[in-house]
Structure formats: C-alpha cells, structure tokens
C-alpha cells in the first residue's frame, strides 16, 4: 500500500508539474509588437525625480524583492519623435498602452501630468491604457516621464509598452483586460451567486454539509478574486496581503472538506493538519514586520496549499471507484488544472524577473467551482435517475400487486359464489331430505304398518323416494361418476334382488363428463337408471353388467333383447329410449344401443 501511495504521489506530482509546464509554454499574454504602434523597449532611468542624471534602461524593468516596508519609486524618461507633426492640425487621439506594470505610475507628457497613481489601488494586474490629451502632443519630439511606484517586498515591474493612436491600442488593451481583471471580476460575481445559492440549499438540507463547504469556498474565493480583479487593498498592505493569500489556503481547505464529505472518506488528518498550519501561519504573519508579509504569506500558503492540493488529488485518484468515470475525469482534470495554475502563479508572483506577464490564477476558482457544481449536478442526475427507476419499479410492483389483488378478489368472489351455491344446495337438500324424503318414508311406513293402500301407490312412492335419492346422490357425488353409479347400485340393489337380477359390476376407470356438474351427473344417472329399469321391466334377464372405463359406460343384460326398429310398438315405450338419447346429447356423450336375442347393450361414449 505504501509503495502504491508513493507511486501515486510521484505520478500526481509529475502530472501536475507537467500541466504547469504546459501552461507556462502556452505563454499566454506575451508582449509582442503591435502593428501600427510604436513599441517602447528602450528608455532612460533617472537617478532623481528631476532627471538630472540618466542612464539607459532596457525593458522589461524589474527591481529585486527586498523585505522593506513602505513604497519605492523609479523615474523613467523617454522621447518619441513626431516627424510629421503639423502644428494646429487636428491630430488623431493618441494613447500609451502599458500591458503590465507593478504597481502603479504617474505619467507626464511634455511636463504635463496626464495620469496619476491613486493609492491604495494597485494596477499590478491591470493593463493600462492612457489616452493622451491633444494639447500635450505639441512639438516634433514628445517627452514622457514615468514614475513607477511599488512595494519593495514584491518588487517593481515595467514591461515594454506601446505608443500609438488610441484606436490601434484599445482592442489589445480590452482583450488583455478581459482575460486579466475582467475574468477575475466575472468569476467574483459568479462566486457570490454560487455562494448564495449553495448556502440557501444548505439551509434547507442541513445534513448535507458539502453544500456548506462549497458555499464557503466560493465566499473565500471572492477574497483573492477581488485582489485580482480590482487591485484595491483594504486594511493596509500587510493585512491585505496576508488576507488574500490566506484566502487561497482556506479555499483549498474547504474544497478538501467538500470532497471528503462528498466521497464520504474517513480520512480527517489532512484537513486538521491544514487548519492547524494555517492558524500558525496567520499568527506568524501578524507578528512579523510588514516588509516580510508578502514573502511569509506566499511561502507559508504555498507550503500548506500545495501539499493539501496533492492530498486531494491523491485521495481522488485512490477513490476514483466512488465516482462514475465521467465524473472522475471532469473533477480530476479540473483539480489538477487548478493546481497547475497555482504553481504557474507562484512562479509569476515570486520571481524577481518572471518571463511571463499574464496572471491566470483567476481561472482557478472558476475551474474548481465548475468541477464541484458538475459533481453536484451529476449526483442530482443520478438521484433523479434512481428516483425514476425506483418509481418505475414501484409502479411495476403496484401493477403486479394490483393484478394479484384483483385476481385474489376474483378468487374470493368465486369462493363466495361457490359457498353461496353450496349453502343454497345444502338448504335444498335438507328440505328434500327431511321434508319430502321424511314424508315419503313415513307414508310408506304407515302404509306398511297399517297394511293400507294399493301396490301401485306404494310402488309410485318407492319410485319417488328412489328418484329423490338419485337427485341427492347426483348433487353429492357429481365429482365422481363411479361413486354416483355405486350409489345407484346401492339404491336399486333391493329392487333388483326382488326381481332375481344380479349386478355384474366392472369398474375400470373414472369417466369425466365434458361439462361436469350435478345436473350433468343427474342426466347420466337417469340414463343408467332408465336402462336398468327397462331391463327389470322388459328384458327377462338375470344379470345386468355395468362396465365403466375412462371413455365408456356400458349397460348390458343377458335378456331376450328387442328389435330397436319396432320398439315404439308393444311394450317398449319410445319415449324411454328417446329420453336416454336426449340426455346423452345434453351431456356430450354418444348414445349407442344394440339388441338381439342374447341381450341388450347400451353404451355411452364420452367425447
């Protein structure tokens, strides 16, 4: 793990320094000749303000950094020839464009003051365009006197500048101003808006501290962006220098806290170390002489910020699995760019004679904030996606459950319906059983015990009782035809033995009617009963064979048989067989009757 950490650390350093070198090589804002403009690179430096003694000076001019308080000045003079100057003729408005100075100047033209510095504002990051009043541009030679002011601790700087018509120089100045203080001001505004938005979000979601840290980071960024955008110093040089440089460190600390909260990393020591070191630095700066404020601030913050920045970068790399690849690429790219910009800026600020003139550090909070906002938006999008997925899943579940519920309601309704039917059937059966059945049995018993009534009535009552039993059996045994036939056998056994007929019972399988149910079963039982009754009445047989398998129910006898063609005559009633056929059709069975002198066979084939 340690070996890996070392490798990752070196890798990160190489990557960030590589980016810093790339930024350096881009050489943004290089000062080069402007077509139509006179580029001033050579002038005279005066030893005194009255310029009694001069020495040649080549631009750029730098003074070494010295730990002294107060202000230092340099006096410079140069002349510009106007060979085609026409006195009293309206000349085109001319201007002087100074792309990079540090910190401020006074400018005299032909002895007239045309631009005066205005402390405490410092123009170290402001390209200066000074229009020259026409009145000052008299004579074939124009004499320019420049007094360059600045702090000894940061050194003075004057880069080559231009003399040309205002219209020629204005676009260059605007362009440089846009990328310098303009962008810093824009970012400052953006930071204020973001800060407000993030703090409002945090006030509603107190549990999510990431918004707080990011909002505070935006607030902190306004400190050094004001320095880059406006150049004003508040509270004196020492305090302001310490303040804006410390803002960078605080900013990095807050980004560290944001990332730790966002990625939910348990590692706390980097931010604690950072905070402790920062507090110590603040104390040291406060008690140090003013001339050391800049050096102490920049070195102190550098030593705190750069390691913390690398820690953030390494943490991010090691925990990249916590982010989506796109989120990681965006955030890692932005963070390392920000670090590269920081290193580039240190080179610019803490070099006596920097070889680059354009400050780019104002881009850093812009890049970082955009990266953080990207992360928050990405998480929001993921949350929305998750919410949508969850909603879809919930909807699916609801649909499924609704369908199940509907099904179970339907089943419940069916069960209830069946229960109601069963209850009603029970009631009817009870009525038949105890009511009609009881009366029939009582009547028969009465007739028997009192020896009253004739045989016909008695047989009719016995038939009615058997018929009732058949109905009850059909209802109770509709789900098993062999049991129903068995019950029929039981009911008819006595009658058959009275007539000297025996059953040959052959059950080989359970037939199932096409549309099972009590009424269908009753039809079948009545067919069989009719067939048996016919045997008793007409066949003169001594055996009735009942053969049953899954597809067929056959009733055969060994009686004398009859001619089915003539069955309508004499003692074979036509309606008996017609009824059997009709019932067969209604239960979906094929009725087949054959008869000869060896007996009669009735078959029911279930389709």
């Amino acid at each position, binding site marked *: 793990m340690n070996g890996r950490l070392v490798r990752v650390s070196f890798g990160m350093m190489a990557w960030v320094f590589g980016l810093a070198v790339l930024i350096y090589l881009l050489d943004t804002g290089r000062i080069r000749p402007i077509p139509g403009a006179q580029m001033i690179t050579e002038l005279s430096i005066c030893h005194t303000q009255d310029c009694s003694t001069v020495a040649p000076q080549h631009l750029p001019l730098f003074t070494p950094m010295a730990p002294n308080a107060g202000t230092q000045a340099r006096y410079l003079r140069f002349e510009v020839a106007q060979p085609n100057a026409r006195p009293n003729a309206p000349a085109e408005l001319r201007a002087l464009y100074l792309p990079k100075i540090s910190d401020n100047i006074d400018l005299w033209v032909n002895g007239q003051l045309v631009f005066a510095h205005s402390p405490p504002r410092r123009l170290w990051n402001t390209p200066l365009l000074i229009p020259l009043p026409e009145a000052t541009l008299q004579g074939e030679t124009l004499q320019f006197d420049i007094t360059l002011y600045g702090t000894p601790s940061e050194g003075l700087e004057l880069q080559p500048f231009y003399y040309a018509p205002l219209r020629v120089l204005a676009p260059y100045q605007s362009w440089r101003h846009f990328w310098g203080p303009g962008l810093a001001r824009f970012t400052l505004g953006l930071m204020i808006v973001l800060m407000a938005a993030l703090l409002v979000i945090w006030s509603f979601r107190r549990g999510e501290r990431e918004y707080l840290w990011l909002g505070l980071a935006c607030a902190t960024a306004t400190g050094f962006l004001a320095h880059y955008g406006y150049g004003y110093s508040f509270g004196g040089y020492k305090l302001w220098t310490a303040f804006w440089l410390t803002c960078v460190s605080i900013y990095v600390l807050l980004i560290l806290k944001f990332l730790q909260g966002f990625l939910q990393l348990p590692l706390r020591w980097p931010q604690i170390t950072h905070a402790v070191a920062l507090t110590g630095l603040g104390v040291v700066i406060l008690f140090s002489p003013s001339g050391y404020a800049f050096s102490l601030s920049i070195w102190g913050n550098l030593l705190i910020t750069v390691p913390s920045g690398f820690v953030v970068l390494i943490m991010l790399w090691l925990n990249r699995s916590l982010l989506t690849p796109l989120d990681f690429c965006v955030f890692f790219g932005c963070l390392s760019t920000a670090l590269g910009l920081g290193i580039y800026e240190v080179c610019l600020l803490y070099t006596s004679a920097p070889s680059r003139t354009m400050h780019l550090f104002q881009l850093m909070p812009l890049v970082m904030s955009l990266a953080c906002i990207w992360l928050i938006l990405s998480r929001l999008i993921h949350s929305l996606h998750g919410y949508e997925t969850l909603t879809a899943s919930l909807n699916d579940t609801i649909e499924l459950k609704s369908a199940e519920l509907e099904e179970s309601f339907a089943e419940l309704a069916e069960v209830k319906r*069946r*229960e109601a039917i*069963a209850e009603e*059937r*029970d009631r009817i*059966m009870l009525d038949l*059983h*105890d009511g009609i*059945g*009881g009366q*029939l*049995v*009582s*009547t*028969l*018993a*009465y007739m*028997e*015990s009192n020896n009253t009534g004739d045989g016909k009535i008695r047989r009719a009552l*016995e038939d009615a*009782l058997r018929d*009732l*039993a058949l109905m*009850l*059996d059909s209802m*109770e*045994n509709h789900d*098993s035809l*062999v*049991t129903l*036939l*068995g*019950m029929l*056998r*039981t009911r008819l*056994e*006595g009658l058959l033995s009275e007539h000297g007929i025996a059953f040959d*019972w052959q*059950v080989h399988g359970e037939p199932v009617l096409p549309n099972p149910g009590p009424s269908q079963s009753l039809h079948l039982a009545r067919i069989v009963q009719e067939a048996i009754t016919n045997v008793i009445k007409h066949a003169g047989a001594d055996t009735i064979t*009942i053969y049953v398998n899954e597809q067929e129910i056959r009733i055969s006898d060994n009686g004398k048989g009859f001619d089915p063609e003539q069955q309508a005559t004499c003692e074979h009633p036509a309606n008996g067989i017609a009824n059997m056929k009709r019932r067969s059709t209604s239960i979906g069975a094929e009725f087949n009757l054959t008869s000869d002198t060896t007996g009669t066979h009735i078959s029911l084939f279930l389709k």
Partner: protein
Amino acid sequence: MSDTPVLIIEDRADIAARLVDAVGATDGVTLVGHAMTLDQGLNMLFDLRPRVVLVDIGLPDGSGIEAVRACVQADWPVDAMVVSIFGDETRVVEAIQAGAKGYILKGGGLDQIGEDILTVLEGGSPISPSIARHLLAIVKDGTVTTPEASPLTERETEILRAVARGYKRQEIAGQLGISAGTVGNHITNIYRKLEVGTNMEAVARASKIGVL
C-alpha cells in the same frame, strides 16, 4: 344365549314402528325400549344398558350425535347406529366420526335393517360408496386430528376405494382373496380410526367437504 338388547331413539311414530317391526322380525335381537326424544333416549340408554342403539339424528330436543357420543363413553359395550333416510354421507360421516358403528336406512326393507344390525354385531359396519369416498377425502385432507388416529393402512385404503367404486363387500373379498367378514372388520377399523370424539371443529370441517 339371550337376545341382544336394542334401544330405538326415533321421534317419528311411523318410522319408529317400522324399526320396531324390523327388530321384532330379526332373530337374535330384542327391543328393550323406544324413546321419542334425546333426553328420554339418554335416560333409557343408561337405565336399560342396551347392546345396540338405533338413533335418529334429527330429534326434537337435540342431535342424535349426542346419543352416539354417550354410547362411546358408556362403561359397557354398546354400538350406536344412526337411522338415515338416504344414508347420505354428510350426516352419516358426522355420526361415524362421533363414534357410530354404521347406519341403517329408514326406507330399507325390514330384513335389510335386521341384517345391518347383525352385521354390526358381528364386527362389520355398513358403508355406502358415497361415504367411502368421503372418508377417503377426509384422510387425504388430513382432517383427522386425534393423536391416536393413525393413517389408514394400504389395505384399508384399497377397500375404501373399491367401495367408493360401487363394489359390494363380497366382491371386494373376492378381489382381495379375503373373506367378507374380514372386509367388514376393516371397515369397522376405518370407522374407529376416523372417530374424532368431541372434536367438533374437525367434524364440522369434515362435514363441509362433502357439499363443497
């Protein structure tokens, strides 16, 4: 050897008269009493200590099942048989589970009633296809809940299936190569195994199966 004493509990006079006639016409049994109500029947049961009780289920002052239970709990050997119009399984099974040894049909012939009584005395029990099927369903559904009730043996199940298909005792005996008496004993054993005593809930559940 003295005749077996029989008690009849039946509220319908004509039916009771018929049962009395049937008992009178059967050799080996003798009527010792006839009760018209459950209360009267229970009193006579303990006073007369009969060997067989023929009891109607629908009595004016209660269910004949109570009399069946009283027989089961009696301290002398007494077999209860329910008197049924049709032998429909719902009530008969209920009675069998309460401890009845069988049933007789009110509308059956006098000799049939006598034969059924004698069958019970000989250790067999009458059974119809419908009742057999119902008993099979009870065993299959696991509604037999008494701890002492063991599942039916393979032979008992086989016999119940054959009865449910309409085969008579003698035919089953022929198919299985055993005597008709043995088949009757098996049926009596089945009845005993399915007896649930006072577990009315099980009885109620079992009763429902046949009509659902």
